[in-house]
């Protein structure tokens, strides 16, 4: 052993003598060690690139997600309208046959259409909602009866998609429109009887069977009602719980069990809360199904642990010396909390609440379970009315096979993500603007 040891030392000394500049890579090229170093360098590069590629994949996905949604959704913000020469014949108006009026106008424009089949496909160019628009127009201006005017009426969803895509790309696929219809739309476009207008119905309507009439107003209002209920319950409850646990609770096993309990609640899959809503709120208390009240109550359970944990963290970050200082001036424990600790921790508390709201806003599964999956055409008036929320609207439209709903879905997602970004920006603002650094 000793002998080997000595040999080893000698080798070391020799090596030092031989190499003049052992730390310079280039001068090293003829040594056998060079290949090992090369290998190490290659491994280093591989490892580094693997990290970079992972990040790029994640970025790529984000970009493709956004591009995908924007490219298929932006067109939903405009709707196609067709100008028709409408004649309000008195007898038709009195009979309420507004559909006939629209059909006559179309036949006026295309007088060579004769067969039943052709007529049917011609009438399908215009939205089924158009007669109702005429009806409400006559209600407002009865003096129009018996006159003939040019009116802009909404096109059917298939027509609209064909028209928009033709505007973008002449040769793109035609969609669910037949050859005749394509020809007619082209004719209408050439005679300046078509236009694209901001799609107001998308923002002021509820759900509809007709894609061109479907909108997000009802579901957005449903979302707001739900969030309102959720925050009204979860905010005071969560903050009070956090204050008690952080400032007053005795440190014993009961408290620690409560803590573990609440922490674990944060990781329970959201669908379990749906089960709870179903069995307790609906079955046991008999609350109204599909209402934003129950939805809000379920989401409140979901974000309660989020609020408790973030509030506790915020309270915890207030230094003990502040509490001591207040107590030394004779403040009672509750005064210490409500005059000092809570006030200084408020930015952190608010950030937590806002992030909780963001989570509740995007939540879908538990709300589906309590029946908020209904077809809601009218905006809910109270929190006990059947309602749906924006994410559920997205879910419903995604499942709708009709072509017109694809762009609606993407557009609804854009609105949903817009709200999410807004909420998160609020959180960032509150944190940046008000947070106290200790």
């Amino acid at each position, binding site marked *: 052993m000793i002998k080997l*040891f000595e040999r080893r030392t000698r080798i070391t000394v020799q090596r030092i003598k031989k190499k*003049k500049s*052992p*730390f*310079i*890579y280039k001068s090293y090229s003829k040594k056998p*060690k060079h290949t*090992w*170093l090369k290998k190490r360098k290659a491994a280093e590069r591989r490892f580094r690139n693997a990290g970079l590629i992972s990040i790029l994949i994640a970025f790529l996905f984000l970009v493709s997600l956004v591009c995908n949604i924007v490219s298929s959704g932006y067109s939903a913000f405009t709707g196609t309208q067709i100008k028709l020469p409408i004649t309000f014949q008195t007898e038709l108006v009195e009979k309420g046959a507004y559909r006939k009026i629209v059909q006559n106008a179309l036949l006026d424009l295309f007088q060579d259409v004769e067969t039943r089949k052709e007529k049917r496909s011609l009438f399908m160019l215009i939205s089924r909602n158009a007669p109702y628009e005429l009806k409400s127009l006559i209600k407002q201006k009865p003096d129009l009866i018996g006159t003939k005017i040019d009116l802009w009426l909404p096109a059917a969803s298939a027509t609209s998609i064909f028209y928009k895509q033709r505007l973008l790309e002449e040769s793109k696929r035609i969609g669910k429109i037949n050859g005749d219809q394509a020809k007619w739309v082209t004719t209408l476009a050439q005679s300046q009887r078509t236009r694209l207008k901001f799609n107001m119905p998308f923002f002021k309507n509820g759900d509809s069977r007709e894609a061109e009439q479907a909108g997000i107003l009802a579901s957005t209002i449903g979302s707001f009602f739900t969030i309102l209920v959720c925050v009204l319950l979860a905010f005071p409850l969560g903050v009070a719980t956090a204050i008690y646990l952080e400032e007053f609770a005795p440190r014993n096993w009961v408290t620690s069990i409560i803590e573990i309990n609440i922490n674990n609640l944060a990781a329970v899959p959201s669908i379990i809360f749906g089960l709870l809503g179903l069995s307790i709120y609906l079955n046991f208390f008999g609350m109204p199904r599909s209402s934003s009240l129950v939805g809000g109550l379920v989401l409140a359970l979901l974000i309660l642990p989020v609020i408790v944990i973030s509030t506790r963290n915020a309270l915890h970050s207030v230094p003990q010396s502040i509490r001591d200082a207040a107590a030394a001036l004779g403040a009672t424990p509750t005064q210490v909390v409500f005059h000092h600790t809570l006030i200084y921790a408020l930015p952190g508390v608010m950030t937590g609440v806002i992030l909780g709201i963001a989570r509740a806003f995007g939540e879908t599964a538990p709300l589906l379970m309590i029946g908020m999956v209904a077809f809601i055409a009218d905006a809910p008036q109270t929190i006990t009315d059947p309602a749906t929320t924006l994410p559920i609207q997205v879910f419903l439209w995604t499942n709708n096979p009709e072509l017109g709903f694809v762009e609606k879905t993407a557009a609804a997602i854009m609105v949903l993500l817009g709200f999410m970004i807004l909420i998160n920006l609020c959180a960032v603002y509150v944190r940046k603007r008000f947070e106290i650094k200790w």
Partner: protein
Amino acid sequence: MSAKQTAIESSNMENNQPLDIRMKTRDLSVFYDDKQALFDVNLDIYKNRVTALIGPSGCGKSTFMRCLNRMNDYVDGCRITGKVRLDGFNIYKDNVDTILLRQKVGMVFQKPNPFPKSIFENVAYGPKIHKLTSSKDELEELVMKSLKRVGLWDEVSDRLSSPGTSLSGGQQQRLCIARAIATEPEVVLMDEPCSALDPIATARIEELIAELEQQYTIVIITHSMQQAERVSDYTAFFHLGKIIESGDTSKIFNDPEHQKTKDYIGGKFG
């Protein structure tokens, strides 16, 4: 730098006199973002001698030391101008390989930082990654040799597989020194190696430094004047990023030229 000076350097390098200059810095300045931490530092470090760097906290000693094996590369926003030469080669040239450089210029940190691995693995780590040994026996031998050299072998030979963090502070620091010399470095940098240790462990490390001096060139940062006086041959006094005075340790401690040096050594500030 004149051509004449360069010539002197290379001639110095060739004849293997004991008082070879191993490392030298010329006009070395270091910036952290916009803040300048070192101002035109010139220092020679002699072969097989101990050079001590002393000075008040924040004076740039550590920054200077980290320039010697390019550990500053890992500090964000750090920029370096001037030259650092090892055996006449500027280590800040592009073709310098930092991996090989650090194998030759080892470093021991202020706080003992053994890896959360066994004692054996701690020492064997360097030789393994650099493939300094070709067989398991050779590796074991090298580990043994390194542990013996820091005087730790007798204390840990029966528990080489227990974690390095289970040792006492002084033992941990010696383990870190063993880890540094296991890669067969030529220069060893020590950044306040004794600041976290008790007096007995400190005395042990100081003895060790005196032994290591035979084979290695050592640079040591210390806050203790007595320690600098005891272990070092040369001393450089840093203040506010500049070298105020450098030279023989006995000269600096007994007859400093500069008033600031006198004040610092006399304990007037620090």
